[in-house]
């Protein structure tokens, strides 16, 4: 509340340049810079008016023309990359997809994981051993 009031009071004080401000500034500037006035400075600055050289337009048009070509080249590279990615995408899942005859093996993948252990066993010679091996997957494997 107090701050808002203070801001309002501060707004009331808006100093503006006095009548002699410009003349005073020019006099001070003249003391620093000799006889050169602001008008003279402006005239002096106008002496340097660089203009486009003879080749400017042609150079620019060449650069402008190169822009779409470069973009078209990039577009081609992008399209080729997209086509390659698409082809790879179509081929890769097929390479990985199981064939129908592999389905039973995949269904017993857990048994294959202990294949090495099973391979160490001797040939099954009697019915009891055969039964034990048939129940092997129900046993807890300890290593």
């Amino acid at each position, binding site marked *: 509340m107090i701050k808002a009031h203070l801001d309002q009071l501060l707004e009331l004080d808006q100093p503006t340049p006095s009548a002699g401000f410009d003349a005073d500034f020019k006099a001070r500037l003249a003391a620093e*810079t000799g006889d*050169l006035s602001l008008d003279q400075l402006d005239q002096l600055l106008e*002496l340097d008016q660089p203009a486009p050289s003879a080749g400017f337009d042609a150079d620019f048009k060449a650069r402008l023309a190169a822009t779409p070509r470069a973009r078209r080249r990039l577009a081609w590279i992008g399209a080729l990359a997209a086509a390659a990615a698409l082809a790879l995408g179509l081929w890769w899942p097929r390479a990985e997809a199981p064939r129908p005859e592999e389905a039973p093996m995949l269904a017993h993948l857990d048994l294959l994981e202990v294949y090495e252990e099973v391979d160490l066993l001797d040939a099954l010679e009697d019915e009891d051993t055969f039964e034990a091996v048939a129940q092997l997957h129900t046993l807890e494997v300890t290593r």
Partner: protein
Amino acid sequence: MIDDDAALMCRVRDGDVAAFNELFARWRSPIVRFTVRFVGHQARGEELAQDIFLKIYRARARYEPREAFKAYLFRVATNHCLNEVRRAEYRRRPISVDELLREPMDTHGASPDALIEAARMQRAVREAVASLPETQRAVLLLQKEQGMPLKDIADLLETTVSAVKSLLTRARRALMVELAPFMTPHAAEISARGDLNAGLGAVAPDGGR
């Protein structure tokens, strides 16, 4: 209400290449004048001017006529020039009289001696402007060269009008100190008339570098 140039730029945005050529033809000279004086070097200034037009063309799809086209154009130009002079590897190149003599110039059939004197004077002016601090240079060129209102310059540089006034005053004072030795009052009078042959005789003898 959009200006003619902004309307042209809208057509560029919509794919009208002829409209871009028209804008380029209208603004190439003011932009080259701005960039060359900003960096103090003709060839580099021209490259920057081309960069600016290319930037505008490449960004055409995003153009929205929210301000006068001139303000938009010089916003791009000023930012591009400021980026150039703020680059770590940027070095201001010395300006040679020979180089200035190769620049396009309306000589009014002046003698070779007069042309050399004119080139010396031009070099002094260009060096003085190019040696100003970058924000002072930007304000001076936008205000003196382009006649841009202080409010627009303040918006463009994201500062206040009083800060712009202060920068402008400091720039002019620095130039007056720097260039005072180059002109006699008579020479100023002559240069105001653009009479190169007559004016060059009034150049202070110790003014050349």
